C-alpha cells in the first residue's frame, strides 16, 4: 500500500525545495522526491566554490529557506540546514518515472519500484534532465562517474572518457596531462563538438596522447578484485570486442531532456519547438488538474523566481489567495499608464486592446509584462530611429504612432493605431531598424525585449502566425512598393511563403529557370558564379535584401547561384504574381532596373578579380556571415605590438576581450578571436537573467546583472567570452612611466595572493565595442599602423576589392 500525502513534490531544486519547506512550515502532509542522494542536484553539480548570484535584485524573496548570493557551498549548507529544521519529509534516491492520475489524486511511481500517492503534485524538475548513463551493466560502479570537478585531482590513472561532445572532449584533454586517457566515441567523428574542441581532440589523438576508439560503445563494466586496475570495460567496436583495464570511467553523454517525461504525465506543450514551455495558469497549474509546474521547466530559470513560485504554489493549493511576489513590481510598471487603478485591470486592458497578446495565458502575460516596459511618449517623440540597432518589440495599447517612410517628405508616413504592433523587422532579422517611428497623440506602448518576445513567439503558435503575416506584408511593402495599397499587394502576399535554409544550402543555382524571388528575412546569402570551373563569390546579401529578380526581369535563366551563408530564412515571392505587381506599378520596374544595373556592375567588378571572392569565402568560412561588425587585422601591416590588446584591457578593467594572435589568416587577412556582434547572437540564447543586450549602435554587451553562469561562454562558437573577476585598481600611467609603480598598460594588475579570501564573483566579459567611450573601439583607435579595422559584412566586397 503506497503512502498517501496531500502534496508530492518532484525534484528538490530551488522551486521544489521551497514548496516542500512551505508545506512543512504549514504542517501539510507532503513528500519531497529527489532522484539523487543530496538536495538540489543542479546547484550541487556546480563547480566547487562557484559564486552563485541572486538576480533579479529587485524581486523580494519569499521562501521559508534562505537564499543569498554566495558560494555554492554556503547556499547548499543553508538549504540543508533549513530542510532539517523544518523537518521536510525528503525521500532521496526516488527518481520518479511516471505520474498517473487515479481517482481524486495521483500515483507517482519511482524507478526503485516504490510509489506514493498524492492529492496534488508540484513538479520542479528543472531543465537539466536526467544524466544519461552508460546504459550497460556496471554503469553504477563506484569508479564510473558522470561528472568531473577538478581534472588535476587524478594522476597516473588509466581513465576512459565516454562521449564525443564538448564536455567529454574538454575532460579528456584536461585529464590527459597527468593520466593515460582513452576516449570512446560511438560515431566515427567528433562533429558535434565546437571547432576548437574538435581540433584539440583530433590533435591529441594524432599525437598519441589520447587513444580513441571510434564506432564503439560499452557493453559491460566489471569491477576487478585482483590486479592493479579497479575495473575493466568491454567495448563493442567495429572490429569486434575490446577490453580495457582501467582505474576510472568518466561518462559525459549529456542528459535526456525532461520533456518526454513531462509529456508522459499528460502535460501539453504548445508546439515542437524545443524552447517552448508548457502552458500554465497564473497559479502554476498545468492542463492536468492538480499538477503544478514551478521553476525552469515552466520558463522561469532564475533561482529566486523558482523559490518564490514554490512558496506560492503551496499557498494556492491550500486555497489561499496570495499576492504574487511580482505584484508590487508590476504596479510600479503600470503606474505611468493613464487611468491606472489595479494590476489586474491593467492586464485585462492590455489583452483587450492588443490582439496579439490576447492569445497568451494570464501568467505568461504577467511574465511578459515583468520583462517589458510601459512607455508613454509625448506626441512627436522619437521611439526609435532608422538604422538604430535595437531589437525590442512594441505593442500599441493606446493612441497611435507614425512610421516615417521618407525623412525628407513629412507626408510619407504611415499611422499605426491601437492594437497594432511594430519593431518586428529588427527582431526577426537582427539588423538595423528600417524606419524611424514617432509617437502620436495619447500613445501608450509596451516595449518588450528580444528574449521575452522570442520566447513568446516560440511558445505560442498564434502569436508567431500573426507576426509572420504582418512581417511579410510589411517587408514586401517597404522593400518594393511603399506606395502600393495592401489591396494591390494582396496577391503577392497571399502566395508568399517562408522558407528555411541551412548554411550552405542552395536557394537556386546558375542556369536554372527562375520562377520566384527571395526576400532575405534572417541570415544572409552569397551570390556566386562558376568561372573557369571554380565557384567565385561575387557578393554578399544581408537580411532585408532580395535576390532572384534578375531572372524575373528579363533573362529567363538564373545568372548566378544563391547560397545561404548561415542559417537563413527567406520570404519566397511567387514569380507570376510578382510580375503582375510590377506591371501594375510602373515605378517599381524602374526601381528594380536601377538596382539591377548597380548589382550587375558590382558583380562584374568582382568577376574581374576572382581572388577577391576567395577573401570573401574565407571570411564567410570564419562565420563572418552572421557578424554585424568584425575585427580584421592586416598582417602585412600588423607589427605585433599588441597595443590593441593592451588598449582593450586598459579600457575594460584590466581584461582584454580580444586575442590578437589566435585565429586564422588568409592572404594576410587575419581574423583574431574577438566578438563579431552577430545578428542573432548565440550568447543571448540562454541567459537566465537576460543580461545580454544589443545597444542602438549594434554593440552586443553584457549588463551588470550577469549571474556568471557561463552559458554565454559555452554558447559562443567563436570563444570570445570569458568569465573574469573584477581586478583591483592600478596606479595611473604617469606613475608607471616615471616611477615604475604598478603594472604597465595592458598588463594584469598585481593582486595579493590570499588563499582564504572568499571566492570572487566572476562575471562574463566580452567586447562591447567600447560603447560609452567616444571615438570608437579602442583596439582600432590604438593600432599605430592601421592594421586593425572593424567592418560589417556588407563591406566585404568593397574590402576584398581594395586588397588587390
Amino acid at each position, binding site marked *: 500500500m503506497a503512502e498517501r500525502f496531500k502534496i508530492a513534490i518532484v525534484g528538490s531544486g530551488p522551486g521544489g525545495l521551497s514548496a516542500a519547506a512551505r508545506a512543512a512550515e504549514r504542517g501539510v502532509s507532503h513528500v519531497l522526491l529527489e532522484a539523487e542522494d543530496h538536495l538540489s542536484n543542479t546547484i550541487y553539480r556546480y563547480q566547487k566554490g562557484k559564486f552563485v548570484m541572486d538576480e533579479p535584485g529587485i524581486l523580494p524573496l519569499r521562501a521559508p529557506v534562505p537564499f543569498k548570493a554566495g558560494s555554492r557551498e554556503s547556499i547548499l549548507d543553508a538549504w540543508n540546514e533549513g530542510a532539517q529544521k523544518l523537518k521536510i519529509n525528503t525521500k532521496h534516491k526516488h527518481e520518479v518515472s511516471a505520474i498517473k492520475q487515479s481517482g481524486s489524486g495521483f500515483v507517482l511511481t519511482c524507478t526503485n519500484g516504490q510509489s506514493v500517492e498524492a492529492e496534488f503534485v508540484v513538479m520542479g524538475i528543472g531543465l537539466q534532465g536526467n544524466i544519461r548513463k552508460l546504459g550497460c551493466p556496471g554503469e553504477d560502479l563506484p569508479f564510473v562517474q558522470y561528472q568531473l570537478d577538478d581534472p588535476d585531482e587524478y594522476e597516473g590513472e588509466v581513465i576512459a572518457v565516454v562521449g564525443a561532445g564538448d564536455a567529454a572532449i574538454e575532460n579528456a584533454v584536461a585529464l590527459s596531462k597527468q593520466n593515460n586517457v582513452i576516449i570512446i566515441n560511438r560515431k566515427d567523428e567528433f562533429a558535434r563538438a565546437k571547432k576548437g574542441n574538435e581540433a584539440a581532440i583530433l590533435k591529441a589523438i594524432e*599525437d*598519441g*596522447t589520447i587513444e580513441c576508439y571510434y564506432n564503439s560503445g560499452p557493453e559491460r563494466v566489471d569491477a576487478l578484485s585482483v590486479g592493479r586496475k579497479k575495473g575493466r570495460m568491454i567495448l563493442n567496436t567495429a572490429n569486434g570486442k575490446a577490453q580495457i583495464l582501467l582505474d576510472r570511467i568518466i561518462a559525459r553523454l549529456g542528459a535526456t531532456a525532461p520533456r518526454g517525461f513531462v509529456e508522459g504525465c499528460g502535460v501539453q506543450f504548445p508546439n515542437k519547438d524545443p524552447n517552448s514551455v508548457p502552458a500554465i495558469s497564473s497559479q502554476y497549474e498545468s492542463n492536468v488538474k492538480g499538477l503544478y509546474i514551478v521553476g525552469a521547466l515552466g520558463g522561469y530559470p532564475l533561482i529566486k523566481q523558482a523559490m518564490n513560485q514554490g512558496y506560492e504554489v503551496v499557498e494556492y493549493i491550500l486555497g489561499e489567495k496570495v499576492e504574487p511576489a511580482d505584484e508590487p513590481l508590476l504596479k510600479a510598471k503600470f503606474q505611468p499608464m493613464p487611468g491606472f487603478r489595479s494590476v489586474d485591470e491593467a492586464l485585462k486592458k492590455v489583452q483587450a486592446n492588443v490582439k496579439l497578446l490576447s492569445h497568451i495565458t494570464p501568467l505568461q502575460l504577467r511574465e511578459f509584462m515583468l520583462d517589458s516596459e510601459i512607455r508613454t511618449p509625448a506626441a512627436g517623440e522619437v521611439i526609435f530611429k532608422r538604422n538604430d540597432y535595437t531589437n525590442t518589440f512594441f505593442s500599441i495599447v493606446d493612441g497611435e504612432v507614425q512610421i516615417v517612410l521618407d525623412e525628407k517628405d513629412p507626408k510619407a508616413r504611415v499611422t499605426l493605431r491601437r492594437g497594432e504592433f511594430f519593431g518586428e523587422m529588427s527582431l526577426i532579422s537582427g539588423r538595423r531598424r528600417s524606419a524611424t517611428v514617432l509617437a502620436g497623440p495619447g500613445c501608450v506602448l509596451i516595449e518588450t525585449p528580444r528574449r521575452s518576445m522570442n520566447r513568446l513567439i516560440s511558445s505560442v503558435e498564434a502569436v508567431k502566425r500573426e507576426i509572420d503575416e504582418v512581417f511579410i506584408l510589411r517587408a514586401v511593402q517597404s522593400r518594393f512598393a511603399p506606395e502600393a495599397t495592401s489591396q494591390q499587394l494582396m496577391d503577392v502576399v497571399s502566395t508568399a511563403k517562408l522558407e528555411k535554409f541551412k548554411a550552405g544550402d542552395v536557394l537556386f543555382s546558375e542556369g536554372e529557370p527562375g520562377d520566384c524571388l527571395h526576400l532575405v528575412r534572417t541570415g544572409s546569402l552569397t551570390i556566386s558564379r562558376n568561372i573557369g570551373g571554380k565557384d567565385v563569390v561575387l557578393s554578399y546579401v544581408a537580411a532585408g535584401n532580395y535576390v532572384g529578380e534578375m531572372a524575373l526581369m528579363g533573362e529567363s535563366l538564373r545568372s548566378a547561384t544563391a547560397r545561404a551563408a548561415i542559417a537563413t530564412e527567406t520570404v519566397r515571392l511567387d514569380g507570376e504574381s510578382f510580375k503582375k505587381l510590377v506591371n501594375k506599378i510602373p515605378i517599381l520596374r524602374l526601381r528594380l532596373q536601377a538596382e539591377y544595373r548597380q548589382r550587375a556592375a558590382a558583380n562584374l567588378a568582382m568577376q574581374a578579380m576572382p581572388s577577391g571572392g576567395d577573401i570573401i569565402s574565407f571570411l564567410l568560412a570564419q562565420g563572418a556571415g552572421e557578424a554585424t561588425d568584425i575585427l*580584421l587585422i*592586416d*598582417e*602585412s*601591416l*600588423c*607589427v*605585433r*605590438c599588441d*597595443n590593441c590588446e*593592451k*588598449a582593450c584591457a*586598459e*579600457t575594460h578593467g584590466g581584461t582584454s576581450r580580444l586575442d590578437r*594572435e*589566435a585565429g*586564422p*589568416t588568409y592572404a*594576410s587577412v*587575419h581574423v583574431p578571436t574577438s566578438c563579431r556582434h552577430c545578428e542573432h547572437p548565440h550568447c543571448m540564447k540562454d541567459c537566465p537573467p537576460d543580461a545580454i543586450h544589443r545597444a542602438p549602435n549594434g554593440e552586443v554587451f553584457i549588463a551588470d546583472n550577469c549571474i556568471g553562469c557561463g552559458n554565454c561562454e559555452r554558447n559562443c562558437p567563436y570563444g570570445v567570452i570569458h568569465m573574469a573577476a573584477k581586478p583591483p585598481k592600478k596606479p595611473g*600611467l*604617469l606613475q608607471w*612611466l616615471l616611477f615604475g609603480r604598478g603594472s604597465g*598598460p595592458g598588463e594584469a594588475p598585481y593582486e595579493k595572493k590570499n588563499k582564504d579570501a572568499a571566492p570572487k564573483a566572476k562575471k562574463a566579459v566580452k567586447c562591447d565595442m567600447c560603447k560609452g*567611450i*567616444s*571615438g570608437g573601439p*579602442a583596439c*582600432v*583607435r*590604438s*593600432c*599605430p*599602423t*592601421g*592594421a586593425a*579595422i572593424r*567592418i560589417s559584412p556588407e563591406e566585404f566586397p*568593397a*574590402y576584398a576589392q*581594395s*586588397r588587390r
Partner: protein
Amino acid sequence: MHDSILTYAKSRYLWISLILLVGAIVAYVLHDPGGPPNGGTWLGYTLGTISALLIVWLMFFGIRKRQYLHNVGTLRGWLSAHIFLGSTLILLVLLHAGFQLGWNIHTFTYVLMLIVIFSGFFGLFAYLRYPSMMTRNRESATRDAMLDEVAEIDQNALSLADGIDPKIHAVVLRSIENTKLGGGVWTQLRAHDGSDLALESLHKALADREKKTESKTAEMPTMFAMVDFLAERATDKQGDAMRKLIDLISRKKSLATKVARDIQFQAMMEIWLYFHVPVSFALLAALIAHIVSSFFYW
C-alpha cells in the same frame, strides 16, 4: 579599409611636412641676417623654437600611445605625423644652425637627434618589411602552438629514443638541451637555435647501422641464415624507430627554425626602440643644455 601609415589620409602629413620644409627653405634663402646665417637671428630663433617644440611633441607620442581613452585623432594618424614631421627635423635644425657644425654641445645635440631619427627610419623599415615575412613564416600557427608542438616532439622523441639505444637517447637528450629559443638580444636577432646538432649524429648512427647489416648479409653463412633473419627483425624495428626519430627531429628542426625566425622578426621590430627611446631622452637633456648654454651668447 586597410592602408599603410605612409599613405594614411592620402599622405596628409607628408604634405604638411613638405610645406613646412619648403617654407623654411624659402625663408632661409630670402632671409638676410647681415652676416653668416646662425641660430641667433630671428629666423634662427624661430626655427629653433619650432624644432624644440616639435621634439617635445614627438616625445609625447610615447605617452599618447598609452592613453587609450585619448580621442584626438587615431594613433595611426599620430604615428604618421610622428614619422613625417620628425623627419623634417633633419633639415629644419640645419637651417636653424645655418649649417654651422663643430665640436660642441650644439652639434652633439644634433648628432643625438640624428641617431634618434635614423633609428626611427630603421623602425619604419622594419615595420614595413617584417610583418608580411612573419605571416609567411608562421603559416597560420601561433608561436605558443609551435612551442607546444616542439615540446611535444621532444617528449615523443625521447620515449622513442629510449626504446632504441642509450646512446641515441643521450644524443636526443643533448639535442633537446641544446635547443634554445629566444634568450639574449643577440641570440634573438641571429635566429639561431641549436636544434640541428642531433640530426647529424642520428643520420650517422643510422648509416652505421645500415652498413653493418649490409655487410652482415653479404657474408652471412647459410647455416645461420634463419636465426640471423629472426634476430634482424629486432634491429629492423630499431631501424624503423630510428627513421621515425629522424622524421620527428627533422620536423622539430623546421619548427624550431620557424620559431627562432619568428622571434628574430619580432626582435627586429622591437630592437630599434631600445635606441630610439633612450637616446631621445638623452637628446632632450642635450637640448636643454643647448638652450641654456645658448643664452650665454647674449
